[in-house]
């Protein structure tokens, strides 16, 4: 088997999108294209340049090994290492190569937007989305509330995949999170690379489902490693140090959403706008009905499966009827509204600043609601402080 044949399986139709991409994936693709064209000298020069730029990029070393080995004798396979080396190690690198090349090939076109991000609030400058099937982190900029893709990076996720439920299950959670802190590298061991940003796993929904565990971080790689295999962490999201350094300035503690999904569902801007407008209308109607003090209309916005803290729908209804009866006027102001479709669930997380005033009570708080579609209309499944 020639090296050329060995990489053909890897080299998908990456060529057409190569111009868009930068960084190691493009360089990697350039190496494989040269092999595909049977220009092994060029491929060697390219892979050596790639290694010079990223001396700890193991995948590049593997391909360089193959290029050298091809001069000594015919190759058996991609990653033609001695048989004594565990095949899984090579397989990890092969999959990394595939994922990185696929990221080049499957780059979403400019008019596609992720269905998860219905609306960013004005203070959220960026949103991060993780597509676990692609081992990819996408960075979106807030362009007037609409997400605009600005960069994407290869990431390592949990050894056992996704949908974390228990402590120690070595899985990455699926859900809508945000970064809660910035742990400077001086306080970390080398294992975490240039920095770490804890996520708020388990969030309210996770707790509601009884999920546990902690310490899910976004972090870098050890100094002797450019990138780790696609499934290697204990549940954390691991970026190459250079990539984390590019992402870090865009992270706002407590604000920047990190949405981890099986697979990002891409849609067009108009469809997304329609969905957002429908939800916004329901949300506005809920606010207006609360101000209107028509408790029946107000409660119609809540699902029969609703819960808030210890209260179920019946308890909530009774409580609200009692409170509203004592009001001669209510004003509800909402601002900084964000709306994210929750992965694997059919609800949307709506977060907002609520400025509540009434004849006998006023308070301002950050609130979170889960909105779900039931019988063709949007209803609230959960409500609580954020």
């Amino acid at each position: 088997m020639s090296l050329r044949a060995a990489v053909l399986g890897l080299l998908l139709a990456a060529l057409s999108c190569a111009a868009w991409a930068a960084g190691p994936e493009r360089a990697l693709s350039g190496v494989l294209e040269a092999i595909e064209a049977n220009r092994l000298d060029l491929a060697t020069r390219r892979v050596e340049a790639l290694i010079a730029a990223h001396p700890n990029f193991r995948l590049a070393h593997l391909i360089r090994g193959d290029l050298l080995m091809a001069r000594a004798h015919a190759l058996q396979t991609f990653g033609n290492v001695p048989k004594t080396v565990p095949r899984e190690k090579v397989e990890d690198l092969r999959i990394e190569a595939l994922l990185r090349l696929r990221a080049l090939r499957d780059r979403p076109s400019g008019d596609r937007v992720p269905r998860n991000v219905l609306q960013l609030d004005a203070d959220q400058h960026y949103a991060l989305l993780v597509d676990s099937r692609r081992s990819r982190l996408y960075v979106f900029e807030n362009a007037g509330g609409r997400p605009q893709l600005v960069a994407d990076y290869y990431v390592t996720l949990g050894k056992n995949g996704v949908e974390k439920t228990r402590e120690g299950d070595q899985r990455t959670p699926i859900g809508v999170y945000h970064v809660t802190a910035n742990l400077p590298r001086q306080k970390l061991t080398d294992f975490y690379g240039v920095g770490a940003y804890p996520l708020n796993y388990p969030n309210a929904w996770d707790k509601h489902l009884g999920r546990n565990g902690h310490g899910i971080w976004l972090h870098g790689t050890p100094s002797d490693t450019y990138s780790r295999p696609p499934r290697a962490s204990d549940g954390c999201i691991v970026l190459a140090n250079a990539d984390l350094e590019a992402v870090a300035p865009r992270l706002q503690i407590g604000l920047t959403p990190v949405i981890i999904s099986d697979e990002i569902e891409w849609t067009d801007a108009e469809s997304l706008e329609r969905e957002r407008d429908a939800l916004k209308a329901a949300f506005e109607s809920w606010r207006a009905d609360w101000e209107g003090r028509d408790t029946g209309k107000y409660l119609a916005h809540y699902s029969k499966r609703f819960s808030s803290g210890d209260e179920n729908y019946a308890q909530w209804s009774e409580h609200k009827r009692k409170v509203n009866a004592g009001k001669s006027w209510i004003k509800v102001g909402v601002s900084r509204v964000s709306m994210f479709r929750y992965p694997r669930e059919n609800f949307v997380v709506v977060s907002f600043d609520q400025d509540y005033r009434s004849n006998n009570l006023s308070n301002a708080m950050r609130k979170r609601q889960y909105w779900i579609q039931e019988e063709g209309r949007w209803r609230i499944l959960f409500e609580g402080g954020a």
Partner: protein
Amino acid sequence: MTIFPDPRPALAAAIVALLTASAALAQSDDIQEASKLLRAGQHQQALERVNKVLASKPRDAQARFLKGLIYADQGNAKEAAEVFLQLTKDYPELPEPYNNLAVIYASQGQYEKARGALEQSIRTHPSYATAYENLGDVYAKLASQAYDKALQIDSGNAGAKNKLALVRELVGNATPAATAVAAAKPPSPVAAPPPEPAKPPVTVAAAEPKPAAQRSPAPEKPAAKAPAAAGAEVVDTVHAWAKAWSARNVDAYLAFYAKDFKTPGGETRADWEKTRRQRISAPKSISVTVDSPKVSIGADGQASITFRQGYRSDVLKGSTTTKTLVLARSDGRWLIQQERVGR
């Protein structure tokens, strides 16, 4: 990897030319004696002989080369490297010092330097099969280092492993055992032309323990009249041989060789066939071309054909070498009795 101790016509020719040019024929007795002593493992005496020559002719390439071999054989890599390095500077047209320098570098784990020296050797002599073979080994070592980096194999262990492999290869080497270099592995397809058989024992670097007689030289006296018909038959045979090789039809290819074919490395027929089988069947495609054939028919009925052999495969870019085949008629067919690179 093979250091350059075996008698190679290329060096022999170069040395003979040097000898003739420098009118140093009188010294060849000392040189021959020194190389005999080296073969016998009597390094000190060999060194004394060589130094005697060098006392009067300090630039003598042959003597210095032999001195390098003695050092290498003693395991004195540093001195050996110095000798070969200086030879490459003084005689940049000789490929062998580059090759031996590379072997020393490789034995020290300096594979990039070894690669550079071998590439230089090949640039000097594009048909130098030994350098190709060694380069294949060096590439394999470099690849192994790259794989170590790729798979994060503990570098301490990897180093030890490489050394162990070296020792094992040494033990398995048929060439001078004490030479501080890796043994010949099955030759890589790059080195498709098998090592050529020895020429008469004029050769300096005759540290080769095999009796030279085993490799009787091809008769070099061309026949007065080469029958044109026989010549055409030989050319046709060689084209058919190249065709079978290109088709990777190993059985057909091997059928071109006489029963008493002198295997290039003196190995058994079975071992040689096994190696050829492996080398011919490993690539997915091979193309062998025969250009500018020149046939001479000897008085004994043997034919000697020299031609430009082009070789390329799916794994290796093309290389062109001069090849000589010696054929004899048997049962109405021309069969190959000897095969060597060069004339």
